[in-house]
C-alpha cells in the first residue's frame, strides 16, 4: 500500500505545491464526502481516546488530592501492596495501550481512506 503522504510527496517533488494543480486537488478533496467521513471519524476517535486519558489521569490526581486513604488501602489482609500501585501502573500501561490502539486504526483504516481521497483528487 502506498501511504497517502507518499502520494502527496510525489506532488511536492514535482514542485507542484501551492500551484494550480494543488489547489484543484484541494478543491476536489473539499467536495469529496470521504474527506468529511475521514475527518469526522478520526476526530471523534482522537477526542474520545483523549477524554479517556484525561479522565484516567485526572481521576488518579483527584484521588491523590482528595482521597489519599483509598490509595493507601492494602489489596488484602496481610498484603503490603496498596490499591495505589496497580492504579498508578495501570495509568501508565493504559496510556501505552491507548496509543497502540490509535496507531493501529490510524495507520490502517484511516490511512487507507486518506489514500483513496488523495488518489481521487488527482
Amino acid at each position: 500500500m502506498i501511504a497517502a503522504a507518499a502520494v502527496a510527496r510525489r506532488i511536492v517533488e514535482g514542485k507542484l505545491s501551492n500551484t494550480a494543480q494543488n489547489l484543484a486537488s484541494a478543491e476536489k478533496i473539499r467536495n469529496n464526502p470521504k474527506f468529511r467521513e475521514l475527518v469526522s471519524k478520526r476526530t471523534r476517535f482522537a477526542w474520545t481516546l483523549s477524554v479517556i486519558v484525561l479522565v484516567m489521569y485526572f481521576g488518579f490526581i483527584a484521588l491523590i488530592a482528595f482521597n489519599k486513604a483509598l490509595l493507601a488501602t492494602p489489596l488484602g489482609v496481610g498484603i503490603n501492596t496498596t490499591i495505589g500501585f496497580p492504579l498508578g501502573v495501570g495509568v501508565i500501561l493504559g496510556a501505552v495501550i491507548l496509543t497502540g490502539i490509535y496507531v493501529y486504526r490510524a495507520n490502517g483504516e484511516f490511512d487507507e481512506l486518506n489514500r483513496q481521497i488523495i488518489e481521487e483528487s488527482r
Partner: protein
Amino acid sequence: MRTTMTALAGALAAFGTLLATGTAAMAAGADLGQAAQQATNWHAIVMFLLFVAGTLAITYWAAKRTKTAADFYAAGGGITGFQNGLAIAGDYMSAASFLGISALVYGSGYDGLIFSVGWLVGWPIILFLIAERLRNLGKYTFADVASYRLGRTPVRTFAATGSLVVVIFYLIGQMVGAGQLIKLLFGMEYIYAVIIVGALMMIYVTFGGMVATTWVQIIKAGLLLSGATVIAFGVMYQFGFSFEQLFARAIEVHPKHEAIMSPGTLVSNPIDAVSLGIALMFGTAGLPHILMRFFTVPDAREARKSVFYATGFIGYFYILTFIIGFGAICLVATNPAYLDVVKGGLNLRGGNNMAAIHLAHAIGGDLFLGFISAVAFATILAVVSGLTLAGASAISHDLYASVFMHGKTTEGKEVTVSRYASLGLGVIAVLLGIVFEKQNVAFIVALTFSVAASANFPVLVMSMFWSGLTTRGAVIGGTIGLVTSVVLVVLSKAVWVQSFGYAEPIVPYAYPAIFSMPAAFFFTWLFSVLDNSPRAAKERAAFEAQSIRSETGLGAEGAAAH
C-alpha cells in the same frame, strides 16, 4: 567542508586537553582521602570516553552527510518511526527523571509514581491531537505550524521567544544537574564538568546537526534502558521476583514504614496536585525539542508510530525507576557504606540523587557503577544536544530567516546562522551553569513545563483546531500565558523565599499551570473574537485549506531524497 573538518579536529584536540585537565583535578581530589572512589572512577571515565569516541565518530560521519537545511534541522526527514521513537525517548528521559524519580521513591516511596505517571500521560495527547497535524503542516519548527495561516513576523517572534525561554531554562537545570553529578561521579571540578558538557554538545550540534543529535539520543536511550533494566532485574532477583517481598522489606527498613506505600507530603494541597498534573501533561506537548523530532520522519504515518514506540519505552523506563527506588530502600539504605554519617538517617553519601548510582554499585560492583555513571553523563549530553538544536532552529529558522530577512535568504546562510547560534547557546548554557551552581534549581523543571503548557501548547493547539484564531489572539493570549507562568513561579516559595530570601511567598501555590494555561486559552480566544481587522477575516478563511493539508498531508513537506 575542509574547514569544517579542520575545526572539528581542533575542537577534538581542545576537548582532549580539557579532559586531561579534568582528570588531573580528579586525581588531586582522590588524594583527599577518597581512595575507594578513585578505583571506581576509572571505570566510569573509560566507559564515558568510549561513549564520547563513538558519538564523535558518528558526528564526523553525520557532518559529511549534512549538506542542506533539511539535513541540518530534520536529518533529511529520513528517520524511521522506530528510530525516532527511541530518539524521542532519549530526548525526553533526562538524568533528572532517572536519578530524580528514583531518589524521590527512595525518600518517600509512592510519591515518585505521581511524577512518573504525569510525565507519561502527555504522550497519548501528543499522538491523538498533535503529532500527525504537526508533521503535515510543519517543516523544521513548531513555529512553522503556529504561523501557517497567521502573520509570519509576530507569530514566529512569539513562538521563537516561547521556545527560547523553555530551552534556556531547561538548559540551566540540565547544566547545573550535570555539573553536580559529574563532580560526584568522576571527582571532577564542577566548572570542568559544565565546560565538557557544553563543548561536546556544541560539537554534536554544530557539525552533525539533527543526524548526529538523533544518533546520540538513540544510543543514549539504548544504554539507559539496558542499564536500568539490569539494575531492576538485579533488585527483583534478590527478592525472588516478588513485589510483595520487595515491599515488605522496604516497609521494614524505611523510617516512614507503611507511609511509603501511599501518597504522602509531596503534593500538599489539591490545587498544587492538579496544577502539577496539568503542567506535566500538557507541558510535554509544548517542548520545542520534542516537537521538532516529528519533522525528522518522512510522513504522518511514521510520526504516529514514533509516538507509540516512544510511549512504550518511556513507560517501561518509569516503571523501572520505581523498582530502582524501592530497591535502593532495601539494598542501599541498609548498607552503612552508602550512607552519609554526618547527616544521618536515610541521607546518602553525595546526596539522595545518588540512590540509583549507589544501587548500581550494590548490584554490580565497581564496573557496573562505572557503566551507570557513564550512562548518566551520556543522558545529560543527549538531552542538552536536543535542546540546543531546538534553540538554534528558533534563532536561525524563525527569527533570522523569517522575521529579520523576511524569507529572503539562502538555505546555506540559514544553516550557518544555526551553527553559530548553537555555539552561542552552548556558551550561554555553560555561563548560566556556572552562575547557577549554588542556586536551588529544583523549581526549574516545574517552571519549564509550566511555560511550555501555558505559552507554546495553547497557541499550537488553537492554530490547528480552531478556525477563529487570529494573529492578534495568538500573540496576546500566548504572551499572557508566558508572562503569567513566569511571574507566578517567581512569586512562589521556590524563588521568592528560597532564592530571594523573603519570609513569605506572595503566591501560595508551587505550580502556576492551573491558572496560566486557562488564562492563555481564554485571552487567545477573547482577542481573536474581538479582532475585526481584514487580516483576521483572511486568516479565518484560510483555515479550511490548512485543515485539508493537516488532515490528508496534501502538499506536506516530504523527505529529501538521499
